[in-house]
């Protein structure tokens, strides 16, 4: 079985978010980049499927050479092969189409993406890929079992869990639950050494036009000072929530 895991290179969760060039660009200065957490849950699941489903795992990112470091990390975690489609990732639509072009050349049975990235939070890429390729799609995926070419997936829905059965090929949007936080694989020395022998292929991009272009960024408004209420004056809190904030 052939699995593609799409990886996004995102700012570490503790990063300070600042904008430069007249607020038209995210300031990458001093920002550490990591594998998008949702993608990492998906990658871990894919690595498990090497054993359970005899899978071959390729990781792919659309981005410039600054993303090579996280691809190497994915290889050290256990992926067999890495691909970078060389261009600046501008919007979900162009990124998805670059991935789709690749999927038309190399057939994958399963495409794993994160449910959403923690930088732009669009949650678009997995659905777009599925739509363009006319594949089945399950997002917010918290369990996946593939046997005899049939996939059984659980999706977290509002207030519960839904189980679906489908044919392959399939695209999933991974999140915590698909594997647990404690299942994430920390690369060891052997993994890191082996990663150096594994292929990291750079493909040229098709230069697909972006359709959603961020023109200007803003920071949230500064918050007013907190109003402190004494623990023995809870009536006051209730009054404020009821009559000032009008939320209860």
């Amino acid at each position, binding site marked *: 079985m052939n699995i593609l895991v799409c990886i996004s290179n995102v700012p570490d969760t503790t990063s300070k*978010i600042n904008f430069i060039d007249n607020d038209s660009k995210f300031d990458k200065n001093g920002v550490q980049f990591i594998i998008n957490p949702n993608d990492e849950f998906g990658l871990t699941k894919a690595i498990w499927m090497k054993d359970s489903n005899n899978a071959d795992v390729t990781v792919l990112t659309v981005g410039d050479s600054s993303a090579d470091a996280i691809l190497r990390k994915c290889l050290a975690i256990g992926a067999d092969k890495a691909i970078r489609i060389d261009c600046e990732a501008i919007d979900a639509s162009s990124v998805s189409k670059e991935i789709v072009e690749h999927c038309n050349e190399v057939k994958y049975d399963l495409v794993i993406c994160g449910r959403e990235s923690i930088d732009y939070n669009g949650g678009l890429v997995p659905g*777009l890929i599925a739509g363009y390729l006319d594949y089945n799609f399950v997002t*917010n995926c918290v369990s996946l079992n593939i046997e005899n070419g049939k996939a059984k997936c659980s999706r977290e829905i509002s207030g519960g869990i839904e189980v679906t059965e489908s044919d392959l090929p399939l695209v999933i949007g991974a999140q*915590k639950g698909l594997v647990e936080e404690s299942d994430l694989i920390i690369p060891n020395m052997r993994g890191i050494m082996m990663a150096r022998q594994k292929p990291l292929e750079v493909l040229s991009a098709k230069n697909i036009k972006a359709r*959603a272009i961020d023109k200007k960024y803003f920071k949230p408004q500064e918050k007013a000072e*907190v109003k402190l209420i004494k623990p023995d004056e*809870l009536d006051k809190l209730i009054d404020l929530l009821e009559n000032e904030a009008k939320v209860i």
Partner: protein
Amino acid sequence: MGVLVYAESENNIIKKSALEAVSYGKALAEKIGSRLNCVVINCSEPNILKQYGTDKIFNITNDSLKDFTSRSYSNALQQVIKAENTSILILSSSADSKYLGAHLAGFTDGSFISNVVGIPDNLDPFTVKRSCFTNKGFSSTELTGDIKIISISANSFGLIENNGDGKIEDFHIEDISSTITVSNIEKQSGKVTIADADVVVSAGRGLKGPENWHLVEELAEVLGAATACSKPVSDMGWRPHSEHVGQTGKPVSSNLYIAIGISGAIQHLAGINSSKIKVVINNDPEAPFFKAADYGIVGDAFEVIPQLITKLKNRK
């Protein structure tokens, strides 16, 4: 040309988030100078949409749409978009609508933008504001493409009543075959979910252990609220993953967010920051959460919460 809203329903009732999408759709339709149409799927009582300014309601009734799948629902909506020559589709940000939106954008080659927080500042070029970096920032984004799909952030626009013709028209769809089927749904009934809640009561490691969560649940019950928790609480298995909120968990954009024994780490705040009013209860006056809160109580949760529950009960 025209604005279409997919008004999501559950058990025949139009969801509140859908009414917000309709309110938004109406404002946008007025800005464009077009009429507002809505589409409902297997919902026999869509009349309420009229009160929010809907001119025409397309009513789809079809057995193959009994269970939601993004594929079958996308297919149905695609037929409406085509027949009506829709250029803008509005969705709520419910889990199902966001799921559907991305898949549909792929099928129609439309341009999808999510987490939108306001009506477009400009129609040509079409420029709309959305949140990004998990609410640590916003962007003004230019969107091109013949079909634009916009999913709006919960509670970012509000409900605005308006008069519309509200004419209901049955919309017949071509048969949908699907290679994905829903085999089981397990849903807790009667519990308010984080996505739909006006009020969310959330607790962290300060609550010491799962045996103390009855306090959180009781407080949530008197407020008609959903319950949530910080990441370590779900990682330790004190609470289910579905309650984990924050940058790597669920986003919260409720009207009121009450945080009990949560320190307010940057990753936690990122996910809940778009909630309108935040109340923090923490015994450490230095807890970073106080900087992000509207109201704060420096005190021991085990003393404050039972009293708060009693007082709220007496108020009713």
